[in-house]
């Protein structure tokens, strides 16, 4: 008989199956490590040591996780409305422009806590603006949001390179980047938070954006499960025809969902631009937008899941960097392989194990 209609308890759907998928992804990653002649268990040990072994390592892990929480939320919000936003990467990139403009214009005059709210709004506005055209095209013109957001990633990259090379570059310097922000345009590090746990942050750029990210998690949860708009978005995500029949405005809901998604992606730049490098640089997003897809899939589009998945990917990014020092044979790009495998097993093959789980569950219950 068909197993698709059998419902499984939540702990299997949200606990066991994602965990098994994750284990499969790591199993195949281990195979790759083994194939190039290194010991996978030793590699795993280096990876975990490198990510969690010291105070500054944890700081770097959480710094990466902060970026991934923002982009993961971005993908998740769109996903709840049935939209696949591949454009978080580009929206974060353009969002950086918003954050940088605020930082550059205010850092001479006010302390960071005055700059911060404006920077949040600036980053979110620019990110949202970059999501607006694909959203409008999807809602009004019926063009596929996946395709348009991919195109906008590339258009955004070209635009940002142009602006950095021709407009923002500091005269006399070679590097295409803005000037360094003064402390008034930087987000301070969270060394006091680490000190609470008796850890030293060292050079790690773990900063206030982490707290902003957690606040956003709460707000997204509130939006999706406790507001009318969230209800409308979820209805649209499950069945657009039913949503329209129920009187939910399609165009408005799609555009608002994408604007929120783009805004959250844009806020990722707070962490990278104002929290870490204190300047706007070329390619500063460095794939975080795409990691957001994996994070959102792993976290089942729920803020709590997203935080956990973001920390997992933070561990991979920081630990992977350390691993490539310890085992020069394994380059940092091993993370990209693991990331791809996680997306493949947890996302594309999410239903693969389901029939087997249903049979197991039914046998266990004696049916």
């Amino acid at each position, binding site marked *: 008989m068909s197993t698709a209609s059998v419902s499984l308890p939540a702990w299997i759907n949200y606990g066991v199956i994602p965990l098994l998928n994750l284990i499969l992804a790591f199993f195949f990653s281990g195979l790759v490590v083994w194939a190039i002649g290194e010991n996978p268990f030793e590699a795993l040990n280096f990876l975990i040591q490198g990510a969690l072994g010291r105070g500054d390592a944890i700081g770097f892990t959480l710094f990466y996780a902060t970026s991934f929480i923002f982009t993961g939320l971005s993908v998740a919000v769109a996903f709840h409305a049935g939209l696949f936003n591949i454009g978080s990467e580009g929206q974060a990139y353009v969002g950086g422009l918003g954050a940088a403009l605020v930082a550059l214009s205010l850092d001479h005059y006010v302390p960071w806590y005055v700059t911060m709210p404006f920077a949040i709004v600036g980053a979110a506005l620019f990110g949202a603006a970059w999501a607006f055209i694909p959203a409008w095209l999807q809602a009004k013109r019926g063009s596929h949001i996946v*395709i348009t957001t991919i*195109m906008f990633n590339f*258009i955004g990259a070209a635009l940002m390179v142009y602006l950095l090379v021709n407009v923002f570059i500091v005269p006399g310097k070679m590097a295409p980047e803005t000037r360094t922000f003064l402390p008034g345009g930087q987000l301070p590090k969270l060394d006091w938070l680490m000190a609470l746990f008796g850890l030293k942050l060292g050079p790690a750029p773990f900063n206030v954006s982490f707290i902003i990210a957690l606040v956003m998690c709460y707000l997204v949860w509130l939006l999706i499960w406790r507001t009318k708009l969230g209800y409308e978005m979820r209805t649209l995500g499950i069945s657009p025809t039913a949503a329209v029949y129920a009187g939910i405005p399609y165009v408005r809901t799609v555009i608002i969902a994408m604007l929120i998604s783009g805004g959250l992606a844009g806020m990722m730049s707070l962490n990278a631009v104002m929290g870490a490098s204190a300047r706007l640089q070329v390619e500063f997003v460095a794939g975080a937008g795409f990691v957001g897809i994996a994070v959102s899939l792993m976290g089942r589009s729920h803020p709590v899941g997203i935080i956990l998945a973001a920390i997992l990917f933070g561990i991979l990014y920081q630990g992977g960097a350390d691993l490539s020092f310890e085992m020069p*044979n394994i*380059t940092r790009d091993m993370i*990209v392989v693991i990331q*791809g495998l996680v997306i*493949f097993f947890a*996302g*594309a093959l999410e239903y693969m194990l389901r029939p087997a789980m249903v049979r197991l569950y039914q046998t266990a219950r004696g049916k």
Partner: protein
Amino acid sequence: MEYFDTFVSILGSAIRLSIPLLFTALAGLFSERAGIFDIGLEGKMLASAFAAACVAYWTGNAWAGLSAGILVAIIFSLLHGFASITNRGNQIVSGVALNFIAAGLTIVLGTAWFNQGGRTGQVPPEGRFSGIVLPGVEMMRDVPIIGPLYANVISGNNILTYIAFLMVPLSWWVLYRTRFGLRLRAVGENPGAVDTAGISVVWLRYRALIVTGFLAGFAGTYLSIAQSAAFINNMSAGKGYIALAALIFAKWKPVPVMFACLLFGFLDAFANFMQGKSLPMIGEVPVQIFQALPYILTCVLLAGFIGIARPPKAGGVPYTKER
């Protein structure tokens, strides 16, 4: 005459730059017309470029390299099929995942095997596809206009270039004049009807994906052992996405695909030529505009301002057989 020579050289380079796009867009054509979206074209191109470079380096045989490139691209296609046909997973997610796997794996394996930071070894000349001088070039050289065009645009390309252009009518013929093609197009529009006619949707879609892998393998091979002489990190550099844009721009039809690829190739060649030069009246045009133009054009098309691009109806939807 000087302008004409420049024009001819831009045209020649446009042809060379459009070949990987053409193979890849035709590859995507088969998959998307069968109802399987393929974001993973980029990854297939990259993985097959790597495989072709490795095998050509080890064996010194370009055809062995091509076979390896095709084989690896087909494997990636089948993985995509396993996820999106057999397990009815999300096709976009699967494509994104395979792109990451290709991007990471090529560098990890390349570094481990060749120790050159992700580059493969330099492929010897006999392991590469080099230019073929067509007969009559010397004879035609003095003929105005046609002579230089023949010598620099039509002649002097490698065999893969000619295969690429042959693939266009061949794809058209397969899609529109064979039983397989008719069924393939039907399965992309209405798989239920195909199923009712007693034809296996699953097997048909798998065959379409094998064709996709086959063509994408040519694209990758072209990049690594025809256009250059080694695999370089991330050498597909977004060409898979431009090919996807070209496919949409051509409204999922084989002959327009060729023109779209030539247009995007020409834009690329023109951007290279314009670097640091300025146009009369307009001044220096930023090179980024040319880089973004294929994507902007595709979005304008998708917005419905240049005709309507209607994708295959069943694209992106996994098929569940009714019970």
